[in-house]
C-alpha cells in the first residue's frame, strides 16, 4: 500500500517522466518474479518427467526380456519300457510313474540329438548337458503322456524350456565371466548352448506362456508365468465391480437426492471422506476379522480379496458419483418434476443418464486403484505360492489365487536373479492394464461428458 501511495506521489511530482515503452524498475522486478515462477514450474515438471522416464527405463530395461524365452527342440522317444512296464496303458498305472522317471528320457534324447548334429564340448558330460534343459521339462512330458497314453513308444518332438541360466545368457544377464564364478552354470555349458543354437536346436522366441503359465518354484524361474495372477486379479475386479458399483451408486443417489440435510448425514459425509483416506492395510485387517474369522470364508480366495477391495473402492466411487450427480444442473430435475414426473423418475430417467459418464470414470479409476493394491491381500493369504488355476466362476471365486501386484512382490523376494526379470515383466503387464483402464476412463469422459 505504501508503495502505491509513494508511486502516486512521485507521479504527481514528475508526471512526464514515465514512458510506456521503457520498462521501469518495478515492472522489471515483476517480470523477473514471473520468470522465476515459470522456471520453477518448468523445473518441477521436468523433474517429474525425468523421474518417470528413469523408472520406465529401468523397468523396461529389466523386464522386456521376460517376453521372450529360450526353447530347446528335442525328439524324445517315449520309451514304453520305462513309462508303462505293464504295457496295458492303464491310466492308474501311468499315474504312478513320477517325473523322476521322465528325466532320463530327456537326457537320452539330448545326447542322441547332440551326436546327430556332431555337437560336443570338452568338459561337459551328459548330466551337465541335461542341465541345459529346465526342470519343468519332465513335468511337461508327463502331462503329455497322461493326456495321450496312446503315444507311448513313439518318438515325439517337444519344445522344452531351456534352463534359467541359459535363457539368461541369451538375454545378457549371464556372461562367460559370470558363469565362471557361478555354481549353477559353467562357461562350457554356455558354449554348448551356442553350438546348439547354431544347429537350430535351441531358439529364442516370444514367450506366450509368461501370460498363461502359473507361478513356478525357485528352481525353475524360466517356467514362471502370470496365468494364475491375471485370472485372480480378473476375478477380484469382477467382484469389486459387481458389488461396489450398485452399492456405491445407490448410496450416492440417496445421499445426494433424498437424504435430509441434518447432523446425521453430515457425519456420514465426513466419514466417507475419511474412509477414502484410510490406509489400505486397515481394510485387510478388517477383511481378515470379518470375512475369514467370522464369516468363515476360505483363505487366499479371490472372493475375499474382492470383498476387501470393494470396501476400499466404495468411498472413491461414492465421492465420484456424488460429484457427478451434483454437476447435473437443477433445471433438469425441475423440468422433469414440472411435467409431472415423480422424484424417482426424474432421477432415473434424466439425472442418472446425464451423470453416467462421471460415475463410470470414477468407477474405473477406483477399479484401477484396487487392481494395484497389495497390502490388504497380504493379510488374507493371497500373497502366496499358488500354482493351481482357480476354477470357473462361481466356484472359482472360492479357490485360492494370486494377484498381479502380489506376483510382483513374490518374485522380488526370490533368490534366483532370473526372477528380477520376471518381476519387471509383471510390472509392465500391470502398468499396461492400468494404462488401458485409465485411458478408457479419459475417453469415456471426453466423449460423453456434457458441460452446462
Amino acid at each position, binding site marked *: 500500500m505504501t508503495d502505491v501511495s509513494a508511486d502516486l506521489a512521485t507521479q504527481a511530482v514528475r508526471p512526464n517522466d514515465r514512458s510506456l515503452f521503457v520498462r521501469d524498475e518495478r515492472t522489471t522486478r515483476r517480470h523477473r518474479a514471473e520468470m522465476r515462477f515459470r522456471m520453477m514450474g518448468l523445473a518441477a515438471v521436468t523433474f517429474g518427467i525425468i523421474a518417470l522416464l528413469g523408472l520406465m527405463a529401468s523397468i523396461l530395461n529389466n523386464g522386456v526380456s521376460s517376453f521372450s524365452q529360450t526353447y530347446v527342440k528335442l525328439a524324445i522317444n517315449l520309451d514304453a519300457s520305462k513309462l508303462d512296464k505293464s504295457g496295458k496303458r492303464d491310466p492308474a498305472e501311468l499315474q504312478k510313474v513320477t517325473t523322476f522317471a521322465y528325466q532320463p528320457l530327456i537326457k537320452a534324447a539330448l545326447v542322441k540329438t547332440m551326436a546327430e548334429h556332431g555337437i560336443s564340448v570338452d568338459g561337459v558330460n551328459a548330466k551337465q548337458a541335461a542341465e541345459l534343459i529346465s526342470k519343468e521339462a519332465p513335468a511337461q512330458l508327463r502331462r503329455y503322456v497322461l493326456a495321450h497314453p496312446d503315444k507311448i513308444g513313439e518318438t515325439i518332438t517337444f519344445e522344452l524350456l531351456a534352463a534359467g541360466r541359459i535363457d539368461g545368457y541369451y538375454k545378457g544377464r549371464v556372461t562367460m565371466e559370470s558363469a565362471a564364478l557361478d*555354481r549353477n552354470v559353467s562357461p562350457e555349458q554356455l558354449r554348448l548352448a551356442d553350438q546348439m543354437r547354431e544347429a537350430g536346436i535351441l531358439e529364442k522366441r516370444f514367450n506366450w506362456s509368461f501370460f498363461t503359465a502359473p507361478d513356478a518354484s525357485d528352481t525353475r524361474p524360466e517356467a514362471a508365468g502370470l496365468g494364475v495372477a491375471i485370472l485372480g486379479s480378473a476375478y477380484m475386479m469382477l467382484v469389486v465391480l459387481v458389488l461396489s458399483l450398485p452399492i456405491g451408486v445407490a448410496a450416492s443417489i440417496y445421499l445426494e437426492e433424498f437424504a435430509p440435510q441434518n447432523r446425521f448425514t453430515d457425519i456420514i459425509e465426513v466419514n466417507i471422506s475419511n474412509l477414502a483416506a484410510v490406509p489400505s492395510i486397515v481394510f485387510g485387517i478388517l477383511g481378515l476379522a470379518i470375512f475369514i474369522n467370522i464369516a*468363515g470364508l476360505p483363505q487366499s480366495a479371490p472372493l475375499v480379496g474382492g470383498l476387501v477391495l470393494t470396501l476400499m473402492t466404495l468411498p472413491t466411487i461414492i465421492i465420484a458419483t456424488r460429484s457427478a450427480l451434483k454437476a447435473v444442473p437443477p433445471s433438469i430435475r425441475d423440468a422433469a418434476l414440472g411435467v409431472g414426473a415423480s422424484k424417482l423418475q426424474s432421477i432415473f430417467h434424466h439425472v442418472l443418464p446425464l451423470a453416467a459418464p462421471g460415475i463410470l470414470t470414477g468407477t474405473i479409476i477406483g477399479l484401477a486403484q484396487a487392481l494395484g493394491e497389495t497390502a490388504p491381500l497380504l493379510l488374507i493369504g493371497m500373497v502366496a505360492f499358488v500354482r493351481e488355476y482357480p476354477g470357473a466362476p462361481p466356484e472359482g471365486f472360492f479357490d485360492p489365487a494370486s494377484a498381479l501386484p502380489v506376483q510382483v512382490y513374490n518374485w522380488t523376494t526370490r533368490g534366483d536373479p532370473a526372477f528380477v526379470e520376471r518381476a519387471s515383466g509383471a510390472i509392465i503387464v500391470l502398468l499396461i492394464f492400468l494404462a488401458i483402464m485409465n485411458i478408457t476412463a479419459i475417453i469415456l469422459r471426453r466423449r460423453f461428458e456434457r458441460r452446462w
Partner: protein
Amino acid sequence: MKTLKIALAAALAASALTTAAEARDQIQIKGSSTVLPYASIVAEAFGENFEYPTPVVEGGGSGAGRKALCEGVGENTIDIADSSSRIKQSDIDNCKANGVDEIQEVRIGYDGIVFASDINGSSFAFTPADWFKALAAKVVVDGKVVDNPYKSWHDVNADLPDQEILAFIPGTKHGTREVFDIKVLEDGCKESGALEAFVAAMGEKDGEKACLALRTDGASVDIDGDYTETLARLDANKQAIGVFGLSFYENNTDKLQVATMNGVTPSVDTVAKGEYPVSRPLYFYVKNAHLDVIPGLQEYIEFFVSDEMAGPDGPLAAYGLVPDPELAKTQEMVKNRTPMGPLN
C-alpha cells in the same frame, strides 16, 4: 456409518454364500520365508506327480506361521506351519487353548548361514569372536569394559583386511537372527573372554545380555526385508558384509564371495558334517486333526521327507538344503503320525 452397514450387509451375503461353497481341497501352508522356497519346490513336484492339487504356500515368517497354525481346527485355518526355529512353549500353549492338541514336528534338514561380501572385494576369514568384537555395543579392551572403539576389521583382528566395519544382519523378526545371536555373538562373546569380564562388571544377567547388545553407531544395520534386500544394499555399498542363507548364496555365487568361519568354507557338505558352525535345523509343524480331512495332506508330508525330495541327491539338496542324516527316522515318524512330545 453407511460403510459399516454396507460392510455388514456384505458380510451377511458372504456368509450366506459360504454355505454353498464346497470343502477345501488344497493344502494350506504358511510360515518361514527361509523354508518357503523348499516348501514351494516340494509343492510343485507334489502337484505334478499326484492327483491332488498343488498346495498353497505362503510366507510371512516363522512366528506368523506358528500363530496361524494354532488359531484352531477347521477348514479356514492352515494345515502346516513352516518354521526356521523350533516351536516355543508359548505357541504350544496357544495351540492347546484353541483346541489344537496334536501337532507333528518334522525336521526337514539344516540350513547354513553364511557371511558374504562383494565378489570383487577383499576376502575374509572370520571367527565368531571377530564378529562379536566388531558388532557388540561394549567390548573388553585391556581388561576394561568400554564402548566399542573399533572402526576397521583390521582393528578387530590383525589378520583381517583394513576395511571399514559395516555389516547387514537380519532384523529381529527373522529366525535367522536368533541363530546369528546364539551361534555367532554368544559364542564369540565366550571365546573372546568378554563374557567373564561382563559378568564381573555387570552381574550375571546383565553380563549375558551385554553379549547380544549391538552397537548403534551405524556399523551394524538390521535388514528387515529378505536376502534380496541385503544383496541390493551390498551392491550399493561394496565395503559391507552381509548375512545370507546358504541356498541364497549358492544361487548368487557370481555376485558374492563367501567368508570362512573358523577356517571352514560353508557348503552343503561342511554343514552336513557339522564342521561349519553357523547352522540350524528347519522344521515344519503339521496339525494332526487335519490329516484325514484335507485330501493329500498325509501324502504331501510323506513326499516332503522322502529320499527323492529331501535326500542327499534330491532337488532340495541341490537348491541348498543340508540333508538330515536322520531322515529315515523322520520318515518313520511321519508314517506313524507321531505327535511331538513336550519340549525338552
